[in-house]
């Protein structure tokens, strides 16, 4: 029989692997490094004897720390969180005129805090309060990063349209 720690972590991984990956790639900008960060984070988490009740944000925080550790090493970083970033809209009809490459480029013109907040809010369906808890900063700060990031994206999209 598996321990509760292993089972709980497995459940979070199965539920959030895509989100964890997107989040890690948005930080490392390198898919291989993002996978290493996720693997390292789970190796460390599995050594714990107890885990916090609200596990999901805790796992995201561990992956973030591992990804930031990787970011400190010098590497060329150009990978996108999107699938087929160089193809215009992946060849599929989109309700907008932007290519994934453009969107990726705009996302990376945001500050790291703005980008992280928008990705967590958009893809991971975290609330701003949960992001504030995850990052250990006040809610107002996260709200400001989110608002500023969206405003910048809107401006860049308006220029392009």
């Amino acid at each position, binding site marked *: 029989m598996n321990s509760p720690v292993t089972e709980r*972590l497995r459940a979070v991984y199965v539920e959030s692997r895509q989100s964890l990956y997107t989040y890690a790639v948005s930080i490392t900008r390198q898919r291989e490094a993002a996978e290493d960060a996720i693997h390292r984070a*789970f190796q460390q988490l599995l050594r714990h004897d107890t885990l916090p009740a609200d596990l999901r944000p805790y796992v995201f925080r561990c992956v973030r720390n591992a990804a930031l550790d990787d970011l400190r090493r010098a590497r060329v970083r150009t990978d996108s969180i999107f*699938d087929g970033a160089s193809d215009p809209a992946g060849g*599929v009809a989109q309700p907008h*005129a*932007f290519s994934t490459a453009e969107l990726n480029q705009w996302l990376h013109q945001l500050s790291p805090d703005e980008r992280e907040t928008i990705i967590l809010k958009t*893809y991971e369906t975290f609330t701003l309060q949960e992001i504030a808890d995850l990052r250990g900063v006040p809610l107002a700060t996260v709200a400001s990063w989110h608002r500023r990031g969206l405003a910048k994206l809107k401006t860049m999209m308006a220029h392009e*349209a």
Partner: protein
Amino acid sequence: MMNDPEQILRTIRLAAPSAALEQRIQSTFAEAAQSRRKRRPIPVWRWVGWIGATGIAATVIFHATRTITPNPPAAAAPAAIQCEIESRGPLRLLLLEPPARERMPPRFSVSVSTP
């Protein structure tokens, strides 16, 4: 045409983790489960046994130490110091010339008890 950045971002297909990551994570989970099975929690009776054995050993050592170490000898009562002071100067003359009937000079004796 949509213009909400969040909605636009949601329409784009995201890159997915590779099968290699999946394998690495699954083997990490399997290793963790195996190592957890190896280090099972210590049963309560073993904890109780250890605590009892430690207590008995401590008691035995305490008593053995007490019998081996001899009691220190009782401290001897300090001897009283007696000082005799011979008077000098004018007092000596007075003392040396007592009434005829008492020719013997008196002696002062001061006793100081030691602390």
